[in-house]
C-alpha cells in the first residue's frame, strides 16, 4: 500500500501525544525539556508532510520547519541555562520544588 498524507499526520499526532504526556507528567525539568523537543519534532513532521503533499514544488513548509528548528535550539539553550542556575541555588531540578514565585 502507498504511504499518504494521513500516515504522516497520524505518526506526528502519536509523537505529539507521547511528548505531551511526558511534558505534563514528569518531575525532572530536563526530562520535560526532552518531551518538548519530541513535540516540536512532531510539528516539524506535519509541516514537511503538508509541504510534500499539498505544495510539492514550493517547499514553504520546509522553510517553516527550519524556523521552528532555530527557535527550538534557542529555547533549549536558554532553558538549560535556567535549570543549571536553579540547580546551583536549590540543589534540585524537580519542578514540584521550584516554587520560588508561588505564594
Amino acid at each position, binding site marked *: 500500500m*502507498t*504511504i499518504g498524507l494521513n500516515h*504522516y*499526520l*497520524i*505518526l506526528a*499526532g502519536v*509523537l505529539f*501525544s*507521547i*511528548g*505531551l*504526556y511526558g511534558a*505534563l*507528567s*514528569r518531575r*525532572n525539568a*530536563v*526530562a520535560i*525539556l*526532552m*518531551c518538548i*523537543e*519530541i513535540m516540536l*519534532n512532531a510539528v*516539524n*513532521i506535519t509541516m*514537511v*508532510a503538508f509541504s*510534500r503533499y*499539498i505544495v*510539492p*514544488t*514550493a*517547499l*514553504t513548509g*520546509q*522553510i517553516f*520547519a527550519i*524556523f521552528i*528548528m*532555530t*527557535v*527550538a*535550539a*534557542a*529555547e*533549549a*539553550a*536558554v532553558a*538549560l*541555562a535556567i*535549570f*543549571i542556575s536553579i*540547580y546551583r541555588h536549590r540543589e*534540585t*531540578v*524537580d*519542578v*514540584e520544588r521550584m516554587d520560588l514565585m508561588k505564594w
Partner: protein
Amino acid sequence: MTGVGVAIGFWVLAAVAVASALAVVFLRNILRAALLLVLCFVSVAGIYITLNADFLAAVQVLIYAGAIAILLVFAVMLTRDAPRGNLLNRLWFPALIISLLMLMVVIYVSVSTDWHTVTEAAAEPTTLTLATTLFDKEKGFVLPFEIASVLLLAAMIGALVLAKER
C-alpha cells in the same frame, strides 16, 4: 521516490521513532532517556528523507541529534539527578487522559478532513528551491531570517548570563 521501498522505510522509521519516544517518556534513568532521544531524532531525519526533504534531514541530524542532544546530556550530567530523576508527578493520570484525548482528536481530524493533495513530483534536490524561496525579493523570508539570527544571538547571550557563576 517510488513505492514499496518508501513504504517499508516509513513503517520501520515510524516504529523506531514511536518506540524510542515512548522509552524517553517511560525510562527511569534520565541519561538513557537522553540517548534514546538521539535515536528518535535520527529516525525523524529518516522520515524527512521519505518525504523528499534531503536538506532538512541533514539539518535535523546536525542540529537535533548533534547540538541539542549534546546540550541535554550536559544538563543531565551537571544536575546529577540521573538515577532517581525521571519520576511521575501527582497529575500523571489527568495528563494521560488529556494526551489520549489529544491523540483521538488529531486522528479524527486528519482522517475526516478532505486534504487537497496533489500528485505532482516533489522538487529534488531541495536546496536550490529552499534558498530561492527563502531569499526571494518579493515574497521571500528575509526579515524572519534576520529576526531568527537576532533571536539566536539574544539566546546565546542570555544563556551565558544565566549560567555564569556569580
